[in-house]
């Protein structure tokens, strides 16, 4: 199937002080939920801005819907949610939604009808005449989603969509993404939260320091990564400490979270041997399971130590 919605080929972008993206190539087929993953400063936002025609690549080509006229040309088919979100604070909610749709090239009457539909769906219909800055932050976020999807775009491009959302809006957004995907639309989103990506994405591209580390369908990525991986849950953190000491000789890498750990076993090691050692050592376990490697593990293994410093930043600030 050669129905590529987004195609980047050898794209590079330099800024005065640093190189943001180097030789990035990726392909996003129709109907796929695509995760652009990487730590902060990896070049995710720059890549997305180049897809959207906001910044121009220094080298390489960007093709959307099979042509290179850029995101602006297709704005009526794209729903774009930038990392830095914002609405006109003094505009009325309904007017703001209609204007943003019109700016994308949607006809005024259509924009108005759909805006009203979305306000109703999000439970904001009684706020339509209020000014945006009279709404709570959570409500403003909902209005922002509505402005991103109300023109029923075939392609959603979301830059760090989950950052800064309260738990309720995280759910709203997740549902939106899932329903868009089920409707056959394509969704591209960037995040540094591997756990989120793992649950939502069909395919991923991991970038670090402006370069692609790996990409592909989620299943393929995990299979190709290889190795034997085990998830261990301990009764408490004291047991965890004891367990990790016993496990050390058997593993090459450990993602130790205290009472839970994801272990990569030494080549040729049978997980059964590790389990026996732990039981013999008197460590109380709640879980011991052979697993596929998590994206987080893969990311750590592939992107290396440079990325390690960033990996604890995935705390949502609600």
């Amino acid at each position, binding site marked *: 199937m050669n129905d590529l919605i987004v195609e980047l080929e050898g794209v590079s972008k330099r800024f005065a002080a640093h190189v943001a993206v180097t030789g990035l190539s990726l392909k996003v087929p129709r109907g796929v939920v695509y995760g652009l993953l990487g730590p902060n400063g990896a070049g995710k936002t720059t890549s997305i801005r180049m897809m959207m025609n906001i910044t121009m690549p220094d080298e390489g080509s960007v093709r959307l819907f099979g042509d290179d006229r850029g995101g602006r040309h297709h*704005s009526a088919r794209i729903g774009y949610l930038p990392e830095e979100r*914002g609405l*006109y604070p003094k505009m009325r909610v309904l007017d703001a939604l209609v204007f943003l749709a019109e700016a994308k090239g949607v006809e005024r009457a259509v924009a108005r009808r759909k805006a009203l539909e979305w306000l109703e769906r999000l439970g904001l219909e009684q706020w339509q005449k209020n000014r945006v800055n009279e709404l709570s932050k959570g409500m403003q976020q909902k209005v922002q989603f509505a402005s991103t999807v109300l023109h029923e775009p075939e392609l959603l491009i979301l830059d760090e969509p989950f950052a800064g959302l309260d738990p309720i809006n995280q759910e709203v957004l997740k549902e939106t993404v899932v329903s868009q995907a089920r409707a056959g639309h394509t969704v591209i989103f960037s995040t540094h939260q591997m756990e989120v990506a793992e649950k939502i994405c069909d395919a991923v591209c991991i970038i670090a320091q402006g370069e692609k580390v790996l990409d592909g369908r989620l299943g393929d990525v995990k299979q190709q990564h290889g190795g034997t991986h085990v998830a261990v849950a301990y009764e408490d953190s004291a047991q965890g400490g004891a367990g990790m000491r016993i496990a050390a000789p058997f593993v090459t890498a450990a993602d130790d979270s205290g009472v839970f750990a994801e272990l990569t076993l030494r080549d040729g090691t049978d997980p059964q041997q590790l389990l026996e050692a732990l039981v013999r050592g008197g460590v109380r376990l709640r879980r011991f399971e052979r697993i596929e490697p998590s994206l987080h593990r893969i990311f750590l293994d592939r992107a290396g130590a440079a990325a390690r410093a960033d990996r604890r930043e995935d705390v949502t600030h609600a």
Partner: protein
Amino acid sequence: MRKVWAVVRREFLERVRNKWFVIATVLGPVFVIAITVLPSLFLMGGSQRRDIVVLNAGAGGLAQRVEAQLARTGAYSVTVVDVPEERQVVVADSLTRHVQGNILSGYLILTAASLEAGAAEYRGRNVASIRDMATLESAVRQGIVAERLTRHGVDPAVVREAQARIDVRKLRISKRGATGESGEASFMVGYFVGLLLYMIILLYGINVMRSVIEEKQSRIIEVLVSSLKPFQLMLGKVIGVAGVGLFQFTIWGLSGFALVRYRSQILTLFKVPADAVNAVKLPSISAELLIAIVVYFLLGYMLYSALFAVVGAIVNSDSEAQQAQQPVMMLLVFSLIISFSAFADASGPLATTASMVPFSSPIVMPVRVATSDVPVQDLLLSMGILAASAIMIVWVSARIYRIGILMYGKRPNLKELARWARQS
């Protein structure tokens, strides 16, 4: 084009619906009239009668003549105090204290030398009132002339006749013949036109800047430039705000027209007698002047709003903009100041040059049109230069704007701005 239209509509409606638009539309003319008319009223101002003393230190009959002249004006109530010359200083000191104590407005010293040397001295609290001082001076001058003539044996009746009031009417001649418009009226119209253009270009230019800053600050700019080209956005903004300006003009124009047309009916409501109404001569505003105002507003606004859009694009906040807008403001202020020279000499080298230079012509040329006859070819040349420069500046500005709106943090210097303008 539909996208540009959406921006135009937003900029227009958001402004016109705003309560500030209503306030500015109502208060704008009041404010302009206030700063055009009030200063002259205050300066010319028929303040209350001044109590003054004429200190006659050996000036003889001159003191009585001056007293009579001053009394006739009705602006002064005069007391003559005769003192021997040697006591003049002592009396003057005590009068000074009276002035300080607010009992007297001032005192006029006439001495024996006044008549020969033609010199007198007035000491008073307020010597800045143009009209009062002019009255005083003319009274002293006339008193001295009359006294000198009388002393040389001229018949007092002849002296009176020679001093009868002389009135020189000053009327402007335009291509269509004498206008019946006085010099003062043509000065007022010119002053009004210059100030009006200065204010509206500044006001709407700053509006464009604010709008750019708002989009940048609220971070909505990124969604916007993913939907439309920065140039489309800037164009829509400039047109939308210009629409607000023209709309406001129309309101002012129509209500002004209605006021003039129905002034007798309106003033009669306020119990002003009809004779008094008809006695007021209104300065004529020609169609030529109106067209010049509108054309120069549009072109001048286009040029300046593009500059203000750049200022908005390169700053991060309103407070930063205060500083960054200074160079653009200076251009406007200088233009206004130069336009004053058009009153003194509308065809002089400064006024004619400034009416060709694109940054000052939007203000200076309409003032020249208001106060003199400007050759049509000059007018067309000036408009042509302004239009060409406005287009060029809009183009350059759009290139800087496009990059500036996505930049946050340190404000770029001129070198960086030049690089942005060149960047593809």
